[in-house]
């Protein structure tokens, strides 16, 4: 595997007394896309929250390009080059579209090798956001909000992008647009973890796959290998 961009090593995490991640280990290679799959409640979003510092890992280590970030708060993990497109989008509803982007602006990290994202380049990628730049974000459609959530994450000029169910609740045509954007981001050299309920979306774009089941890593594989193993998919995802 290529250099590790983000790694979770033997991570345990809890919501109250509930042991939601149990000895979870996986690795996102640099400039690769890792698809994180699993049923509802498998721990996918928890992995994103732990990776971003929103939920502390009780045991284990999280590393960004080899540097431990396990105990760091989200703002410091963000500064180390990690960005999150959260489940449910969670845009700042009382800010305008432009303000949502401006507040997240950050110069690219020294180790970054990606083009610097600015409001202009975000608007080039999502012209609809430019049309609505002065509108309150709360008034955007679901698809536009998703574009804004992606744009906001990119404004941090991250090296690692965590995308938590970006297709959730969107019309098929908008999902296709979002996936096309994700493909472009991958081609730009970003290291991406893509969490999805729908494995077919992930198989199309991911290099590596991790399947979680009840808070544990159940499968580490590749899309090509998994697509041939219907029984495994049925066992862990309940599909095919």
């Amino acid at each position, binding site marked *: 595997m290529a250099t590790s961009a983000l790694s979770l090593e033997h991570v345990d995490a809890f919501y109250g007394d509930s042991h939601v991640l149990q000895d979870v280990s996986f690795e996102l290679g640099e400039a690769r896309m890792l698809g994180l799959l699993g049923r509802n409640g498998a721990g996918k979003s928890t992995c994103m929250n732990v990776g971003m510092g929103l939920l502390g890992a009780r045991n284990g280590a999280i590393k960004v390009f080899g540097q431990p970030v396990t105990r760091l708060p989200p703002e410091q993990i963000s500064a180390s080059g990690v960005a999150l497109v959260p489940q449910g989008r969670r845009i700042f509803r009382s800010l305008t579209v432009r303000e949502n982007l401006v*507040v997240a602006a*950050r110069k690219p990290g020294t180790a970054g090798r990606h083009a610097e994202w600015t409001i202009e380049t975000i608007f080039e990628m999502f012209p609809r956001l430019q049309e609505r730049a002065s509108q309150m974000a709360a008034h955007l459609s679901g698809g536009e909000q998703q574009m804004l959530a992606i744009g906001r994450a990119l404004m941090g000029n991250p090296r690692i992008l965590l995308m938590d169910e970006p297709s959730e609740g969107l019309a098929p045509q908008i999902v296709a647009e979002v996936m096309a954007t994700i493909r472009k981001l991958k081609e730009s050299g970003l290291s991406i973890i893509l969490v999805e309920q729908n494995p077919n979306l992930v198989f199309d774009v991911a290099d590596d796959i991790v399947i979680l089941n009840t808070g544990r890593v159940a499968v580490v594989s590749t899309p090509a290998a998994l697509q041939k193993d219907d029984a495994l998919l049925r066992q862990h995802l309940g599909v095919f």
Partner: protein
Amino acid sequence: MTFWLLLSVNSITFGALLFLLAAGFSLIFGLMRIPNLTHGSLFMLGAYFGATFVNGMLGAYFDFWLAALMAAALVAVFGAVIERFLLRQLPGQPLAQVLVTLGISFMVADLCLMAWGGDPIAVATPPGLTGFVRIGPMVFPLYRIAVIGIAIVVGVALWLLLDRTRIGAMIRAGVDDPDMARVVGIRVSGLFTMVFALGAALAAFAGIIGGPILTVYPGIDQYMLPLALVVVILGGSGSLLGSVVGSMVIGFLYNFGQALFPELAYFVLFLPMLLVLLLRPQGLFGRFIP
């Protein structure tokens, strides 16, 4: 006619003073969800510090405006300390926050009584603003007109800060979704300390600006705090426009109530607050927070 006009100017002046006090209270209450009952104490501390500097109680006499800025800066530091070392430890615990801030306000009142005694302290009107303005047959105290001007300048500055700057957008983002704000790299805790310090500075500034009108005396904190509360509840917490409107409404109700129905002055003052709480709990311009 003269009576009504003078009463109106007094009402606007008092409203302007209330705005300076309540804008900070509203910012802290609305943006950070902290019911900061030390706000009256911050007003009183600003007034006492300012009076100390202006009246040469430390051996040197300071210019009124310099004294106002120094008092505001000192109280801002005090506010930042309260936020960082006390209220920061009680996130999402409004009852504990109320008790802590109430306790601090009593402690500050005791300390002020010990330091400055029980007698009222007069604060001279700043030189250059001691005269009167003649508008037609009417004569208005120049300082009161200046207080209105100061409130307008502060109001516009606050609006520009919150609505037209990146840091203002970051504060609003932190209020919308603190966790996501941190995820995009905003240091929310630092911003909130800044907001608290700014609110404290505004209260202190109002305290010394109000000095020549109200004088400074023990108990002025408990006199001003309920008025600021009514303004924020009426206008809506976190809303600058709400603070402006609320302050003016209360300024008029207070002055006209005292003049026309002195025995019912507080009834007239608090009745609108009760009605607003019943009919529109988020205030006239506040956002509904479930």
